[in-house]
């Protein structure tokens, strides 16, 4: 499959999705990203999957394919439903769907910014969680080894942000995702068992990972 990489919007524009994901939530951020990059069209990932708010499906009559938008078929298979703090996401399998040659790059870059926002929020929550806990009388957040994990997570976020600020697109976005994956897992370690609960803070990480899996950037071969 060949995906033509068009130039996405500049980092200064895309940074809004980071702020939205961080402050309001993933459902809101995805809704705005879709309205701005692919209005009326359901963005489909390279494996033929979607992960979107219900409102996006309702407001769209077409879906993306490598050959351009097609009218939305009926009877797509619902793969998953994920409740988040600001609404529900639904995953579909859309046979024949795939990234659009014109809007695919902007969508993929926006997804990376949204993940950055979710991971930023996760680390803030982890620090807050540990500020309220103690180990042998010492605030857990002040333990040097805990700070070490926190620093690793912060470094991953900083690397992702630095790459995104250079208007990273195409294969560079892979590194953004890997850095965010590592930071996300460090955050999970920081939360202790609280992050392992279904309704705990691990929810943001789950969605963030699924977004990366549903809408990965093009591989070297596809981008060339």
């Amino acid at each position, binding site marked *: 499959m060949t995906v033509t990489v068009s130039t996405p919007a500049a980092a200064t524009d895309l940074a809004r999705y980071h702020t939205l994901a961080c402050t309001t939530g993933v459902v809101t951020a995805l809704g705005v990203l879709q309205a701005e990059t692919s209005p009326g069209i359901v963005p489909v990932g390279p*494996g*033929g*999957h979607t992960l979107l708010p219900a409102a996006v499906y309702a407001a769209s009559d077409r879906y993306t394919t490598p050959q351009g938008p097609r009218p939305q078929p009926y009877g797509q298979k619902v793969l998953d439903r994920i409740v988040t703090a600001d609404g529900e996401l639904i995953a579909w399998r859309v046979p024949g769907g795939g990234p659009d040659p014109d809007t695919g790059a902007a969508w993929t870059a926006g997804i990376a910014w949204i993940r950055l926002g979710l991971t930023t929020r996760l680390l803030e929550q982890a620090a807050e969680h540990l500020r309220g806990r*103690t*180990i042998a009388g010492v605030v857990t957040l002040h333990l040097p080894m*805990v700070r070490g994990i926190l620093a690793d997570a912060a470094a991953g976020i900083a690397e992702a942000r630095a790459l995104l600020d250079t208007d990273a697109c195409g294969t560079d976005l892979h590194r953004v995702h890997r850095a965010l994956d590592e930071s996300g897992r460090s955050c999970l370690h920081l939360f202790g068992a609280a992050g*392992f609960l279904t309704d705990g803070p691990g929810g943001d990480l789950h969605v963030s990972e699924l977004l990366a*899996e*549903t809408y990965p950037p093009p591989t070297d071969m596809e981008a060339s």
Partner: protein
Amino acid sequence: MNTDFLTDLRAHARAYADLLRPTALDRDRNPDLAVSSPGCGLPWRTFAGLPAEYNPEPLRVDGRPVLLHSCVERVVVLEELARVDAGAVLALPGPSMSSSVIGDLADDDQRQRFWERITAEPTWTFFAMTEPTHGSDPSGMRTTVRRDGDGFLLNGTKRYIGNAARSRIGIVFARRGAGPLGMVAVLVDTDLPGFTAAPLSTRGVRALQLSELRMAEVPVTEDDILGRHRSATRQGMWAATRTFNRYRPVVSCLALGVAQAAYDLVVTERRGYRVAERHLLTDWEQRLTGTRALVLAAARSADANPGDGTLAAAAKLRATRLAEEITTTAVRLLGPGARWEHPILDKLLRDARAFEFMEGTGNVQRLTLAEGYLQRRLPDVRAA
């Protein structure tokens, strides 16, 4: 135990593990199936590690019974079962971690009460240490057992306790006095007034059904206090530490089983690799072998001296990281939407993330390992 015997034992376990396969995903969706089908398809008594007199059908390998009393036997067998469903292994009825505490602390009457209770029919047990505000730090424990007339009253909340909401008996760690020696292990029947347990929903190893326990003025007696005949230094904290040392190799083998399963899935499903991917698979293969050797060494060490958890901490660190890494990367290797296309991979990834926390987080293992190393408890350090 020689290598041939362990190889045969592994082969037996692998054959049994297939019994778990058809229902692994159902159990993940609905943890109650672990109760309606005790053993999840396995003959539960065979795998529960029961004393010989309560285990009429032990595993038989090379003509001899295998009771799964040693850590070495456990890590070999349970890794193979975890390769199919780690949640099912953790959800088996039986003594689990409590058996270690019973073995170290119970007197004859308590021992008989415990074993008769849990072998008459499928019965789950729990080991309740963690509290909502204190996990890694037992010194902050708030659950208390205080004298009340001839007996005691138990008060407090425990959180993230495996199998507790389905258990009829278990061990609660509580503070009777100040300091590490003030902690005692109490054998608690869950039908006592003031005792409640509610399931918590988790992302992985869902069949284990973590729970929250609340104890409000639960009446217990002198007969329920484990270690009552033992010295002040041989009480709750001493037994808990030995239990962690014995079960960290077990948690490590479960993590290893999950890592191996994810590797197996990639090899089965993926066709054609790039050069870098081929190198990655070779690296995984070598790390799986290295970690398996370390887990076995840790199990041998725990059998020889349950007072020393140095190798167990090393094994748990390595196995946990490997399970997290392989499952996470496997998702990428199997392509976009892999977790939906391969639901078992989704389960492996979620299960793999439990091991970081079970029986002490990675940092707690690092602290134990560093201390053990400096105390010259690792074999190569001793030899030097």
